[in-house]
C-alpha cells in the first residue's frame, strides 16, 4: 500500500530532540557515499616518540600504499585525493603530492590539501564526499597527516596590530591550554570529573589495544629513530604510544596543572601532541559495487559549526548533535540538559557533550561495527573558524 505508506510517513509529528530526515541521497541508495576502506599509522608522541624524526610524506605514503594494496585497486581509478593538515606550510600541499608519488599513484590523479585545524582530516573526508556528490568523480581518497615533532604550533602568521581591537580576534591567540581552562570554568567541569574521564578513556583504550581491536587498521611503519644515547637505529612502530594501561586515579590526581597555577588541566587529562597519518577510500555506492569493493559504512550527514575561539574545545558538543540531526539519528546515552525556556530544540545538546563519542573511537571502531551490522556513520567536524588550535572530533586523524 504505497499511498498508506506515504501518508503515514507524514505523521512523525513535531521534531522532538534530534529527529529529522537524513539529507543524503534521498531515495536512491546507488547515490550513497560509502566508506570502502581505511588505514592509519600508529599515533606516536611528538618530539619523543617513534616518529620524532619521520617526515610526514613517509607517514602519508605508508597509509596511501596500504589502502591501495589491501584492495588491490589500480591507483588510476582514484578521482581525487584530499589531505588534511595544519602545521606544514600551505597545509602541506607539496608533502601530499610527494607522498602520492612515493605511493605509486600516477600524476593524472589530482591532489589537494585542506586545513580546518583539528578537524582537517575529517574535512578531507567531507571534501571527497562533496566531490562524489556533485559528480566530479566516483572514487576518492581522503587523508590526514601531521608531524607535531618536526613542526610546532606557535607562529600565528601575519596579523595586524589592529586585530587586538576586536575581542574575538584577540581570543584567537589564546593558547590551547588556556581555552581548556576556560571551558572547565565556564561549564563547571571539575578537576575530579576530568580525571575520572581521563581514567576511563585510558582504560577503554588499553582494553581495546589488548583485545587487538586496532590491529587491522594500523599500518606498521619502519623508520629511523635516535635514542637517548644518540644511537641511530631502524625501528618498526606497530602500536599507539599514548595508551597507559597502568593509569590510576591517584596518579592523575597528583599531577600539577599544566597551563595555569590553580587550573585543572594537567598532562594526564588533556590530549597529547602526536605524529601520524590516515587514509580512507570513499566511493559512490554504485561504483563500489561495480568495482567489487567492500562497503563498511555510509556517510549520512555532516555538520560544521563555529564556536567562540576562547572556548574552542566545545566544538564537538555543537557539531555532533547537528550532524546527528541531519542524519536523523538520536544521541544515545548522555543527552545533555533539557532545552531551557525559549531555547531552541536544536541547541538542546549544547552542554551535554557526548564525551564517549569524541574521545573514544578512532575510525576503526565505527567502521568495524559498521562492517558487521551495516551501521551508518555520521561525521561532525567542529570548526572554530577563528582559532588556530584543536578540537576533538569523531575522526580517524585525531591527534590528541
Amino acid at each position, binding site marked *: *500500500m*504505497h*499511498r*498508506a505508506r*506515504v*501518508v*503515514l*510517513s*507524514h*505523521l*512523525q*509529528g*513535531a*521534531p522532538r530532540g534530534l529527529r*529529522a*530526515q537524513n*539529507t543524503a541521497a*534521498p*531515495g*536512491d541508495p546507488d547515490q550513497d557515499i560509502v566508506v570502502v576502506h581505511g588505514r592509519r599509522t600508529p599515533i606516536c608522541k611528538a618530539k619523543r616518540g617513534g616518529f620524532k624524526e619521520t617526515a610526514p610524506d613517509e607517514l602519508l605514503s605508508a597509509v596511501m600504499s596500504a589502502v591501495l594494496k589491501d584492495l588491490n585497486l589500480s591507483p588510476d581509478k582514484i578521482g581525487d585525493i584530499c589531505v588534511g593538515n595544519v602545521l606544514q606550510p600551505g597545509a602541506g600541499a607539496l608533502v601530499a603530492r610527494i607522498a602520492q608519488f612515493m605511493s605509486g599513484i600516477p600524476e593524472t590523479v589530482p591532489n589537494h590539501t585542506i586545513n580546518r585545524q583539528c578537524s582537517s582530516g575529517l574535512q578531507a573526508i567531507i571534501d571527497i564526499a562533496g566531490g562524489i556528490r556533485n559528480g566530479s568523480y566516483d572514487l576518492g581518497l581522503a587523508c590526514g597527516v601531521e608531524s607535531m615533532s618536526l613542526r610546532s604550533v606557535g607562529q600565528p602568521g601575519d596579523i595586524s596590530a589592529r586585530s587586538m581591537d576586536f575581542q574575538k580576534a584577540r581570543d584567537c591567540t589564546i593558547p590551547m591550554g588556556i581555552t581548556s581552562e576556560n571551558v572547565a570554568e565556564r561549564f563547571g567541569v571539575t578537576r575530579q570529573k576530568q580525571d575520572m574521564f581521563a581514567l576511563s578513556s585510558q582504560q577503554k583504550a588499553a582494553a581495546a589495544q589488548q583485545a587487538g581491536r586496532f590491529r587491522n587498521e594500523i599500518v606498521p611503519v619502519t623508520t629511523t629513530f635516535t635514542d637517548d644515547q644518540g644511537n641511530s637505529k631502524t625501528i618498526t612502530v606497530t602500536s599507539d604510544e599514548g595508551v597507559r594501561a597502568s593509569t590510576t586515579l591517584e596518579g592523575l590526581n597528583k599531577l600539577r596543572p599544566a597551563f595555569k597555577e590553580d587550573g585543572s588541566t594537567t598532562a594526564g587529562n588533556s590530549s597529547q601532541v602526536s605524529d601520524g597519518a590516515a587514509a580512507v577510500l570513499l566511493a559512490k555506492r554504485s561504483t563500489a559495487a561495480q568495482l567489487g569493493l567492500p562497503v563498511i559504512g555510509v556517510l549520512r550527514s555532516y555538520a560544521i559549526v563555529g564556536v567562540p575561539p576562547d572556548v574552542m574545545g566545545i566544538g564537538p558538543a555543537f557539531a555532533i548533535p547537528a550532524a546527528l*540531526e*541531519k542524519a536523523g539519528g538520536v544521541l544515545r546515552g548522555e543527552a545533555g540538559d533539557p532545552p531551557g525556556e525559549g531555547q531552541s530544540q536544536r541547541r538542546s545538546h549544547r552542554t551535554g557533550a557526548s564525551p564517549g563519542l569524541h574521545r573514544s573511537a578512532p575510525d576503526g571502531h565505527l567502521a568495524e561495527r559498521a562492517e558487521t551490522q551495516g551501521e551508518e556513520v555520521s561525521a561532525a567536524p567542529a570548526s572554530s573558524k577563528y582559532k588556530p588550535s584543536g578540537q576533538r572530533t569523531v575522526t580517524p586523524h585525531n591527534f590528541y
Partner: protein
Amino acid sequence: MAEGGGITRAIRIPGRHGYAVEFSPYVPTRLACAASQNYGISGSGTLIILEQNDAGLVIIKSFEWGDALFDVTWSEVSENFLVTSSGDGTLQLWDTSKPQGPLQIFKEHTQEVYNIEIQFTFSLHCLVSCLLFKKSSRRLHPRKEEVYTVDWSQTRGEQFLVSGSWDHTAKLWDPSVGKAVSTFTGHENIIYSTIWSPHIPGCFASASGDQTLRIWDVKSPVSKIVIPAHQAEVLTCDWCKYDQNLLVTGAVDCSLRGWDLRAIRQPVFDLHDHTYAIRRVKFSPFHASVLASCSYDFTVRLWDFSKPSPLLDTVEHHTEFTCGLDFSILLPGQVSDKKCFHCGPIRILKGSQWRLRCSLKKQTISFIIREKNATEPLYGNV
C-alpha cells in the same frame, strides 16, 4: 475568530474524504471539492460542486471517478470547467453544465512532446471547440503513479495546466490539445504541489518529498532555482499575491517557511505551531503578509508573518486531518473593502494506523466555510 462575528457553514458528505477545495473564480458562492473514498488510500473519487446560500452549503453537482481524486483547479477560460488530478495517473476535465463527465480524460501520449518554444494563446471559443470535438479519450499522464496536484495558469496570454506526480515529474499540459507539452525532471522524490506564479508568465513552483522547493520556467526542462527548504518532506507551497519574489512552504517538520527568490540561503520567516505535518498553505488574496495553513493536526491556522507574534488564529473545527484550504477571491460587496475572509477547509484522514482503521467505519466529509463580518476589520489592524 469563532467569537469574532464569523459565520460558519458546514456540510458532511458520508463516505467521502476531502483532499482539496477551491472557490470558483467566477461564481462567488460556488466551491469545488476533490474527494475520495477510504481516505484516498483505495476506492473511487468524487468531484463535488457546492453552492453556499443562507441555508448553508448545498451540493449542486457531483461526478464520480474510478480512482481517488487528490486536487482540483478551476479553468480560467470557462466558469463551467474544472480539472482534477487522480490516483491513477490521469487528469480529468469536467464540465459542470453536463449531466455526466468527464468531458475529457488527459493521459500522456506514448510519445512525449518536449518542444515548447511557442507560447500559446487561446480564446475561449478555441478552447471550447477543441475540447468538444475531441472525442478520443486521451489521458494526460503517462503513468499509473498518483497525480497529487494540478493548477491552471493565471497569467494573461497562456492557458496551461501544470501537474505534479508521485513519479517525481511535473508536466505541462496544453488543455486544448490534450497532451503534455513538456516534462520537468529533477525532483528526487514525490511532487506534492505545483503552483503557478500569479505574476511571472510561464513560471511555477513545486514542492517535493526530496525536501526542496523548485522554481521552473516552462521554457526550460530543468529547474531554475532549487531551494533546500526543509529537512523534511515539503508537502505544499504557494506564491505571495503581492510580491512576485515571495513564496511559502509547509512541511512534515510542522513549520512554514517564507522564501525570497532573491536571497534563498535563509528563509525570510519561519512559523511554528502546528503539531503535525502541514498539508496545504495559501497566501491571502487580500493581504500581503497573511496566510493560512491546514495540517494533519486537524487545525487551520492563520498567520501574519510581519507581526512579532505571527499566529493570528487557530481554527479547530475539524476532527480529522485537514487537507484542503482556500481563500475566496470574490464575494459581492465584500472584496472591495478587503475585510472579507473565507477559508473552506475540509477534513479527511485520521492519525495513527489504529485510528485509521477505526475511523474507516464512519467516513464523512465536512465542509466549513468561515466568513468574517464585513464591517469588522480583519484582525484589528491588518
